């Protein structure tokens, strides 16, 4: 085993010596350690970006995956140490509140001008003290334009989920928060409400939906299923919708008129990070044009880099003419999620189970 590591180290050194950095560059002297622990969502990066970063800075990136903000949070609570995390907006709000993040080094992260209009001045961290947006998205409806007329779809908005004509042809994303967001928005309430009457009304709305369209409650399998045109409409994240639309030209995307959720996943450095210096360098690197382009093109979620966003949706871009790629920005009725207390989340769960079990 020792020999293996020695050989590996030698190979790394050989590869690195071909790199662009000065000959006397030593990552350990520079950053204190040449290892960076990154914790990100699954299927949310172009691996080449990590390899390039490793080569350029002669470091090693440990890349681990989570599948929900809550999973990431639980892991963090259990004492795991990471250098860069990519949670969503409301989770960042909670992490800031609980003093679990450290401020960015703005001398290093000096390229915030790259940020797109839609991801500036965000409520949870208005001047980017702690976070730099990574990718962003809206929640919306992917629908088969050969089955449902686009004008009709636009007219209906969220209430399409109550239209019995679509019964048996609907996918509902199995996520409490998003399902309740749909109902609350359809009823004209805020997605972040804690008013018991509004929540009860949303609960009734969802039960009606269950009766009216008999949806299949799914998670990520919805992506392939809609790309294959298996049902007429589905609740999806715009980033996944961009992929579906690029696979199946019959599909359309709608961010309903009643407003929806805009969510932002952003890079942060936890307070207990072991290599914050390198973490800052990594964050700057990701926000640069090259890395941002690769990531957004691969994943289909909207880039936080303005130039990339414009280019990918432009005439020759990978997502030209794709309605789902660029999230609707600046629409008054759209909201970010705020962090809600545990009692409310538990209530969401209890009500959502009843909806799914048809009770």
């Amino acid at each position, binding site marked *: 085993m020792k020999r293996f590591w020695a050989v590996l180290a030698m190979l790394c050194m050989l590869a690195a010596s071909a790199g662009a950095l000065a000959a006397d560059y030593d990552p350990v002297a520079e950053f204190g350690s040449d290892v960076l622990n990154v914790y990100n969502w699954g299927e949310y990066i172009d691996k080449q970006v990590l390899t390039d970063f490793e080569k350029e800075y002669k470091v090693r990136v440990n890349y681990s995956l989570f599948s*929900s903000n809550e999973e990431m949070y639980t892991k963090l609570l259990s004492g795991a140490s990471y250098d860069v995390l990519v949670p969503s907006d409301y989770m960042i709000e909670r992490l800031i509140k609980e003093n679990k993040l450290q401020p960015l080094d703005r001398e290093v992260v000096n390229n915030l001008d790259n940020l797109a209009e839609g991801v500036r001045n965000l409520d949870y961290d208005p001047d980017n003290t702690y976070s730099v947006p990574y990718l962003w998205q809206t929640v919306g409806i992917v629908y088969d334009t050969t089955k449902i007329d686009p004008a009709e779809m636009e007219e209906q908005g969220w209430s399409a989920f109550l239209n019995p004509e679509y019964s048996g042809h609907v996918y509902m994303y199995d996520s409490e928060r998003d399902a309740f967001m749909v109902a609350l928005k359809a009823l004209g309430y805020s997605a972040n409400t804690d008013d018991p009457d509004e929540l009860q009304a949303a609960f009734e709305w969802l039960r009606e939906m269950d009766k009216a369209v008999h949806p299949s409650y*799914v*998670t990520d399998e919805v992506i392939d299923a809609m790309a294959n045109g298996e049902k007429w409409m589905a609740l999806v994240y715009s980033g996944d919708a961009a992929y579906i639309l690029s696979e199946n030209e019959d599909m359309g995307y709608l961010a309903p008129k009643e407003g929806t959720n805009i969510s932002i996943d952003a890079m942060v450095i936890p307070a207990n990070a072991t290599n914050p210096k390198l973490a800052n360098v990594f964050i700057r690197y990701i926000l640069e044009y090259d890395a941002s382009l690769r990531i957004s093109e691969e994943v289909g979620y909207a880039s936080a880099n303005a130039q990339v966003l414009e280019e990918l949706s432009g005439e020759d871009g990978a997502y030209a003419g794709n309605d789902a790629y660029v999230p609707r920005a600046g629409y008054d009725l759209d909201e970010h999620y705020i962090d809600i207390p*545990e009692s409310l989340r*538990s209530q969401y*769960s*209890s009500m959502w*189970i009843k909806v799914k079990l048809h009770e």
Partner: protein
Amino acid sequence: MKSFFRMSYPYLLWIALFIVAPMIMILLYALTRSGNGLLTFQFTLENFTKFFNDATFMRVLFTSLRIALLTTVFCILIGYPAALFMASLPERKQTTMVLLLTLPMWINMLLKTYAWRGILMNFDLESEARVFIGMVYDFLPYMIIQIHTAIAKMDRDLLTAAYDLGANRWKTFLKVTLPLSVPGIISGITLVFLPAVSSFVIPKLLGGGDYVLIGNLIEIYFLNAGDWNFGSAISLIMALIIIASMWATKKLDRNAQEG
């Protein structure tokens, strides 16, 4: 004797750290409400009353018990004839059969379940039917092996004696083979019913979002809701069910051995 007792220390330490301590933590969570500090918590039974007063949760509990029972019964119905057949083969073939039977266990259960998902999604089945097929498939080998072991170690002379005394094959089976294989059936039940009632991957992958068993309920409250108190209460209720059914099968086993 004393020195042998000392050898169990590592095991006792293991139990204390990884079984007793977590159980105590679950108990503490289940009996408190969130927002309590480590030193200021107040005991409450509201997590349990919430569970038992809600028709939905009771139905989930009932569904879990029903599907576990159904799985166990079917495993016996399919597994018993299979075990009987295996025991009737020459010894060397029996070894091969046991090997063949355990072969699928070398593959990770998650992979097998995903494979079933690919197969079953092509058919228009109720979610419960899909979960049931997946569970029977997964737990059947445990049942067959237990019953087969019980039958195989039976003294063959007993059968000859029964024939000598004029019993036909059916009567021999009823009076000799079946009673002697009961311990095998009972350990088979333990190995099938308990994991089936707490199963959560199979219903999650094969059942779909609208099929919730008690294992899934625990996951939802821990991960989605972050309500560790209620999640712990459900875990505790499930642990009690498991202990109760272990006690019941043990009692059954003792009765069978006495009778």
